[in-house]
């Protein structure tokens, strides 16, 4: 190939035959020892680059994959437990349950209906001992009851507890506790919330029971 001649753009010349190409490269990967035993910087360089990349890869995967969880969407999170909350807010659960069921009788204002449905706002039963109000919701309430000095005859509060005979709603202890906590902190009520454990304890202690009467509740200490 004459160095001075202008290259013809219409034809790139080959400088090596296919045989020679294959020969040369076969030699390069062959097992022949390198006679001149030159020290080559390249293998070290590539080794460093790849080691560095693999180190980065391992560290990054360890930290930013949240253990390959299928429900974590932010790679900064360390795992499911730190991201996904198991329990929803009790007050929200309580409010939703109240608005779905209790509101029909006890009304949105918690005032109930005079003579028919007892009020919850300011009621001594609601704000009193947890053991009594828990029983009311778990087992229901029948018969005459006196609330804030007024009398309510022939009450028929449904049964809400799970596993109780004739239970209309089968609410879990969590939900009952949530509703009670909500009611005890609504309107003018300012009583302490009730935990699911308290409800569960009473549920376990009393077991199955027919709907409570006023007398039953007053017997509870």
């Amino acid at each position, binding site marked *: 190939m004459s160095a001075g001649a202008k290259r013809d753009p219409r034809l790139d010349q080959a400088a090596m035959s296919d045989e020679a190409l294959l020969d040369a490269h076969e030699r390069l990967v062959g097992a022949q020892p390198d006679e001149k035993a030159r020290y080559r910087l390249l293998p070290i360089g590539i080794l460093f680059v790849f080691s560095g990349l693999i180190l980065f890869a391992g560290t990054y995967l360890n930290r930013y994959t949240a253990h*390959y969880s*299928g429900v974590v969407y*932010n790679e900064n999170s360390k795992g499911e437990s730190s991201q996904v909350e198991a329990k*929803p807010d009790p007050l929200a*659960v309580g409010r*939703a349950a109240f608005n779905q069921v209790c509101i029909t009788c006890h009304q949105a204002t918690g005032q109930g209906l005079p003579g028919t449905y007892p009020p919850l706002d300011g009621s001594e039963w609601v704000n009193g001992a947890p053991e009594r109000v828990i029983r009311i919701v778990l087992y229901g309430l029948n018969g005459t009851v006196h609330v804030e000095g007024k009398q309510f005859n022939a009450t028929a509060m449904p049964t809400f507890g799970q596993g109780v005979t004739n239970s209309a709603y089968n609410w879990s202890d969590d939900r009952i506790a949530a509703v009670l906590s909500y009611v005890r902190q609504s309107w003018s009520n300012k009583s302490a919330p009730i935990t699911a454990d308290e409800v569960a304890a009473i549920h376990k202690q009393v077991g199955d029971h027919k709907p409570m009467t006023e007398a039953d509740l007053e017997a509870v200490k």
Partner: protein
Amino acid sequence: MKSNFAFFIGVFVAVLISWGMLMGANVQLGSLAPYFDETDGTTHPEWMPGIAAQGQLVYRDLGCAACHTQQVRRDGMGPDLARGWGDRQSVARDYIYQPAPQLGNNRIGPDLTNLGDRKPSAPDSDDLLNLLYSGADGMPSYRFLFETRRIGAGAQPSDKALSLVGALRPPQGYEIVPTLEAESLVGYLVNLRTTYTYPEARPYVVPKGQNPEVKPAAAAAAGGAK
């Protein structure tokens, strides 16, 4: 590597590795079930009504995903929440009942994930039909989704006729009526909403006591030295 068989197996195993990643993702995403809400006893997401499911196919066929995305990104990753495109980031569960999710990858036009739930007011069917007919800045008009037809002598204009103003109004005695494609498309768009906040969709906050930015001693020293 002289052996052809060894080479073939090598290539196959290499492709199998990324295929394995795909299968892992499939196990996680393919098994996503609807979420049952304890508080109000409902499951989310909800099925799209029939016309909306048809509308998604029209959306796909017209290629709307070329300009519109349907994925809300989390706070800090773009302007999505600030622009009112959603209350929270989109998660996989939002799409499990969609036959052909059209996530898109270029925001030439706005994101449409919660078009049916935009605040303060979501566009209604008429707004969207008018927009499709007239086009907007950067959005072509889709006149072929509509029919211009004559109102018969003594007949009333159709309920579905578009009410247009100015130069777009049809000539006297004619009305512009959406075709079934336009109606399904709009039916799909007004039903786009992903309002329920699943547990996994809640934003991630750095747990207390693990703030990587402020070192307590340094902060106290800075506060005290003032």
